[in-house]
């Protein structure tokens, strides 16, 4: 992979266009931004993995409370260290793009929110999620009672089969009725 955007091959570009929801300009921009993260030696190599720390220096992700989860979910790394290749990065941008379908978005949102990676959102996941949203410090955190009431409310609303956890289909059902989700689950480079 080259140092400038123009060195992204034409075939590769059209393949990426086919495989993602991104437009040509967006792919080129993504490539430019991604190569900026690489060190000099890495630019020579193909399919370099950029470690999480460097990905998180991107301003688009820097202030996102879910940044670590996002890297983790989109990473194809064997060591599960959350490092991203350029293609992983494109996958990420594609899922967060304007034209991605609700299904894709909700699928990835579910995985991002599933902190312990067990396939359901249980009370622990929900608590972590709420803490991520409101901030981790003690003053911004909800009290224990408030948290319990809130999680009870969430489960009451979304847990259709009443098994105490929110699974993917329940999550997608809830999300499909949430009008703000598609417009807010978006990262603009």
């Amino acid at each position, binding site marked *: 992979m080259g140092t400038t955007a123009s060195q992204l091959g034409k075939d590769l570009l059209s393949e990426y266009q086919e495989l993602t929801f991104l437009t040509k300009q967006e792919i080129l921009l993504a490539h430019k931004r991604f190569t900026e993260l690489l060190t000099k030696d890495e630019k020579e190599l193909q399919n370099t993995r950029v470690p999480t720390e460097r990905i998180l220096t991107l301003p688009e992700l820097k202030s996102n409370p879910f940044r670590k989860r996002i890297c983790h979910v989109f990473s194809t790394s064997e060591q599960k260290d959350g490092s991203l290749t350029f293609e992983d990065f494109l996958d990420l941008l594609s899922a967060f793009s304007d034209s991605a379908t609700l299904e894709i978005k909700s699928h990835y949102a579910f995985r991002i929110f599933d902190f312990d990676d067990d396939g359901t959102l249980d009370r622990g996941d*929900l608590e972590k999620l709420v803490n991520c949203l409101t901030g981790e410090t003690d003053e911004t955190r909800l009290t224990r009672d408030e948290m319990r009431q809130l999680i009870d409310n969430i489960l009451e609303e979304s847990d259709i089969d009443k098994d105490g956890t929110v699974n993917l289909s329940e999550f997608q059902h809830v999300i499909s009725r949430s009008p703000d989700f598609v417009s807010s689950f978006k990262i603009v480079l």
Partner: protein
Amino acid sequence: MEVDSVFYTDHSGRVHNNPLLDQLPSYQSLLYRRKSSNSGTKRRSSSRGRSGSSGSGKWGVSTVSRREEKQKSQMVQRPIRELATTMAEKRIHVTQRLEEARELSSLRQLRQSTRRHLRRLRDDAQAWLSWLKLWRGDIRLIEGMFGTGILSYFSFLRFLVMLNLIIFVLMFSFIMLPLIIAPHASGNITYTQKVGSVCSEYSGTARRGLVNFHEHITDLLSGGGFLERTYLFYGYYKVDKIHFPKATYNLPLAYLLVTIAYLFLSLIWIVKRSATGFKRNLIQDEDRFQSFCNKIFAGWDFCITNENAVRLKRSSLLYELRTDLEEERIKQKIADRTRKERCRIYLIRLILNLFVIGVLAACFYSIYAATIFSQKVQMDNIKENFIVDLIYEYLPSIVITLANFVTPLLFSVIINYEDYSPAFEIRFTLMRCVFMRLTSIGVLLFSLWSQITKCDNGPCVCGYNNKLYSCWETRVGQEMYKLTIFDFIIIVAVTIFVEFPRKLIVNYCDCGLAKWWGQQEFAIPQNVLEIVYGQTICWIGTFYSPMLPAICTMKYFFIFYIKKVSLINNCRPATRPFRASSSNFFFLAVLLIGLALACVPVTFSMAQINSSHACGPFVNYNTSWEVLPTTVSKLPGGIQKLLLALSSEAFAVSFFVVTCLAMFYVIALAGAHKRVIDQLREQLAMEGRDKRFLIQKLCQAQRLSAIKSPVSKSQPCISSPSYHTSFSNNFNEAVFLAHSPPASSTHV
């Protein structure tokens, strides 16, 4: 552990689910595989696989092949990019598809490739089109920094620019263009006029002789003087018919029809835009029980990159959650209220509402008085000096702006004592502000009309006060013109002289007062109200001043940049932000109210008040509306009959009845849907209970059989902790468990 639970604990005390749960079709939805466990098999069951019974070993090999077939057919239907998989796997899908495509006939291959090319072409075209969209980059930037709530304000502004541009194009092409091209296209303009009548004397305010420079400025700001007899105002279009070599252009008719057209166009456009928002709002209203999920699952705005905005978003989310939780408690409290308390609160509300009405009445009266005073001064032509004259001219605008500045502050204080729930408080204050803003225009127009139709001695000869208002439409147009200009000046001035110094003070002054004051909040509702107010004036004024849409287009164009600069440099986002969905609907709802309000005076003046006989296109008619019946009477008999039938009572009544029937049908349909939804929901909960019951039975049976057969004794307890993450991990177990109990207990 309770007995009826589907979970049971193993030795380490961790709660595990029964692997049998894996085989339930509903749980197949969970089967997405993590990167860690994808070594070997490529058969990833993505989210879309949940419709099928994929991943289950219980049904053996035959199901697997069936599943693959199913997947194949699904893959052909869907574009690859819609798969929730990694790039590498998408590639494999692509090659698979290509292989499959090779098996297909050449015709289908061709069709597929053309389809792909067409899609690529369409995508490119869309990309180009969006490139052309006004302010694309600016709006993206704002979205990136401040999130979707503020974005919706700016896209609303863009919508208004487009709307005004279209209205202007409409006005220009049907009213101004014929006048402009008439001399060049050998058109013959006829100006008909009742000569010798008292009513037809037009004394404009055009200045004669030497004109001072400051008078030019006054004219420019007030629309009088040299501006009065230009394309800008109604009075200039004193044309009856334009005779082109081949056709005759009926300008009065065009004027009336275009006015109706622009009102209708605005209505349709707004309704169309708000339809989606309205639908969402209805859904949201209906299941209010989803509010917490919306806040948690869709609460974070992933667009936000500004550090400050992140902090704000966090605190606002926390605030919202806390208030919502509190609201629940308050609801409980309201339900528990004693009669005495209830009486006390209603009494307080009554008194405060009376007070609000009193304040509103005072505001309206001062607007009325200011208008009458300003009109009188203008009529008497008392000249003092430049500044004082200008203030007199602008007195109504100044009073309206002042009233709109003071009352919202007052309302926000009052609402604290009324003891409503927090969400309702905000909505109620807003409603009061909307009422105040939009009604003040109404009061202004009312006072103008009371002046116009009032004569010194008895009833007016011409139907209006022809001495003072020889061309009253132009006068109204001038008022609207002044309001528009003043509104713009105020917005610019507030940004430059209030917000900017405030920011400087807050940033560079360390005293406590400045810190307490803080930076200006970018309050979306107030800003929206401001531009809706301007738009309402524009709608009213377009009839009297056809160039007003052009002025408004420019005005909103500049406001966009001013607001953008002010937002980025001077303001911080409001602590309680608007959600994009609800705000979109709110904007359009307020705009619709504005439109309705604009329609009333325009239709009233067209149908009821005598049009002036000294100027304008309707010189020959008593009222503007008369053009229509006159034109219809000149049409050939058939069409005339048709139009008469359409406007008859019989038609109106039957139309009304049919509409009512359609409405009842829709209402009944909605009710039926609602009941179906309730039933389905109940059924779902029931099935969940059934499932739990059955699984509990299964577990018992397994434990029994495990005790019976010592070989499999320890097996049920070693269920994998990542039970539904990967099907392959516990495949063996699952098969084992499915077969180990006696046949009678598995086939439930």
